């Protein structure tokens, strides 16, 4: 155990000894297991295959302290508004803690809940309480990942979204995580928060959820996020995740979804921020007839480094997964994509498609793309492809031959990488908002 890891253990003892003590026994037990697992695993190194392109030295070598309470002053409501798609229901967390004043509790249809996990844990009863108990920390693999373990060990609050069976909701529900770390005065140095999100759609429910991460911080801080999403039989979830961490921010995240029979999940990941970002995404298709769209976009510049490791696990037959990741990398940015598709024995009639296209806008930008197919069934359709390269000269000439200036042509071709991903988004308001974000970044 390193000195840094020891500090997290000490912090955990302090954490479990005071404020977090009100948690139910089952959760305390999970936390104890998670911190023990973290102590065993330690932070990964580049010698590990899964981490060979991404160094977490900036985390392992620094002294991040737990962000206990939001540093004052709180962000202004208007600034939060800027980050949101609409004026609809939202929960806002500052440095990992729920802030009621910034959240909007509009009237929700019966059977829809969006709120803080802490509140759901306290109430403990009813269908929401049951859902939390059944799913919280049951999916994201804290036994395998040091980061998920650490998040789970410090699990105290986060967002809880629950849509009861058969309830159809059109308005997007928003979960906003804001970091203010690195700007406080007289603080003990850079902070870490462990945002936790649990989304549960019961059978035949339908909802749109936007999970966004942003910062009002120019300094160094670390967000260690974990999201679990459970999509019940016949349920449909469109989940957007927008990452706009600060320029010196670090984000490590795990998203784990589990889909039941005939369910539909569209998971859209838009990564724009952070100096260093790593996102492990695991989607388990655990019921026949389930469909998954995993749709990602990373737009990077400067010295940004973003690493997506995705696993699509076809555990049952007749499931469809379509995965698309596009990257646009400028200046000295580095994008990593590792896409693993597992087709379990018996998962016949699997239809799986994966593509990763990377546009390099400078000679110093870099993209590493690795598909990994593990197929243990024989009656399946699996395709994958990836590209890495600069602007295509033939495309450029084609556009110029239609009267567009070289600059306009380049801009259109670059935007096309984003537009291809945006086009798969269904909710019109969210798509329009993200389209604006992408345009601002690319043009």
């Amino acid at each position, binding site marked *: 155990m390193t000195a840094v890891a020891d500090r997290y253990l000490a912090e955990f003892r302090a954490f479990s000894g005071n404020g977090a003590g009100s948690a139910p026994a089952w959760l305390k037990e999970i936390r104890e297991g998670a911190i023990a697992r973290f102590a065993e695993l330690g932070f990964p190194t580049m010698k590990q295959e899964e981490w060979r392109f991404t160094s977490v030295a900036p985390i392992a070598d620094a002294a991040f302290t737990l962000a206990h309470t939001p540093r004052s002053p709180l962000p202004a409501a208007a600034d939060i508004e800027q980050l949101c798609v609409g004026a609809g229901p939202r929960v806002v967390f500052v440095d990992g803690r729920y802030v009621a004043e910034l959240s909007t509790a509009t009237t929700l249809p019966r059977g829809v809940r969006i709120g803080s996990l802490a509140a759901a844990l306290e109430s403990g009863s009813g269908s929401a309480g049951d859902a939390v108990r059944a799913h919280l920390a049951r999916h994201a693999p804290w036994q395998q990942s040091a980061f998920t373990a650490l998040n789970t060990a410090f699990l105290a609050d986060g967002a809880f979204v629950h849509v009861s069976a058969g309830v159809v909701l059109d308005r997007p529900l928003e979960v906003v995580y804001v970091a203010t770390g690195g700007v406080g005065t007289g603080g003990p140095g850079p902070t870490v928060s462990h945002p936790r999100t649990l989304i549960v759609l019961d059978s035949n429910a339908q909802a749109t959820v936007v999970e966004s991460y942003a910062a009002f911080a120019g300094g160094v801080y670390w967000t260690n996020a974990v999201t679990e999403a459970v999509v019940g039989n016949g349920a449909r979830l469109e989940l957007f995740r927008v990452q706009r961490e600060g320029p010196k921010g670090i984000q490590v995240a795990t998203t784990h979804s589990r889909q039941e029979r005939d369910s539909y999940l569209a998971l859209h990941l838009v990564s724009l921020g952070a100096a260093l970002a790593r996102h492990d995404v695991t989607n388990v298709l655990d019921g026949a007839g389930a469909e998954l769209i995993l749709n990602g976009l990373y737009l990077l510049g400067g010295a940004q480094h973003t690493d997506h490791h995705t696993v699509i696990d076809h555990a049952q037959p007749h499931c469809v997964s379509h995965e698309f990741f596009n990257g646009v990398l400028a200046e000295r940015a580095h994008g990593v994509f590792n896409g693993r598709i597992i087709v379990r024995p018996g998962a016949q009639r699997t239809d799986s498609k994966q593509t990763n296209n990377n546009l390099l806008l400078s000679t110093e930008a870099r993209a590493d793309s690795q598909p990994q197919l593990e197929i243990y069934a024989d009656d399946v359709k699996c395709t994958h492809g990836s590209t890495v390269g600069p602007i295509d000269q033939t495309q450029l000439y084609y556009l*110029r*031959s*239609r*009267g567009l200036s070289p600059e306009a042509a380049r801009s259109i071709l670059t*935007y096309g*990488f*984003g537009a291809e991903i*945006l086009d798969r988004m269904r909710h019109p308001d969210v798509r329009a908002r993200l389209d604006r974000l992408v345009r601002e970044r690319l043009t």
Partner: protein
Amino acid sequence: MTGRGKRETGKVLLEVKDLHATVEGKEILKGVHLTVRAGEVHAIMGPNGSGKSTLAQVLAGHPAYTVTAGQALYEGKDLLSMAPEARAREGVFLAFQYPVAIRGITNAYFLRAAVNAMRKHKGVEELGPVEFMDALEEKLKVIGWDSSYLSRPVNEGFSGGEKKRNEILQLAVLDPKLAILDETDSGLDIDAVKTVAQTVDKLRRPDNATVLVTHYYRILTHIQPDVVHVLAGGRIVKSGGKELALELEEKGYDWLREEVAVG
């Protein structure tokens, strides 16, 4: 080398003189002469590898080709010194033999960007999405398409025939003065060839001209060319009226090679 006995009434739109061009160091065009006047339709025929597409691409400004000698004047201006976009804005249009797919960009977005680039150049107000769609509806009818093609990414997942039709849609929308169609009829079924021909015919005016680069006679049964040229070995070896195309259809190209060799 214009057609014999032609009414040379329109003003000269394009004048190519002794054009030589290379690609990757290999000379493809070896002294092409061609004069196209407003109001005319020219057909350039010839065997594979004779330089037909090279001529088309050189006129449009493809960066892979190097002009080593000769000139091309468009409305009296030095076409070859102009950037591809400048040529387009001045009214030169090339329908590509192999249209290029553009990921993520819808046909509507692309067409509007092109139209507005031209309008801006002319100092005319640019069109918003709604106005543009209205203007487009008419053009779609011309090529017999519904608007579903507009929301699809440019040429992506299009069949060969759809790509060619999309070039013709661009032709109709951009309304150039000089249209060069590079084997637009290749790989099309007979109905599609007819649509292409009819569209070109409809767009024909006294102030514009079309150069049809083609391998086949059949499109010429729907369009009356004023002049037919035979390009072989990087030169125009023979020019004539429509009857020349028919002769080529019957006799092939070999007799011309002999004629050139002897003469």
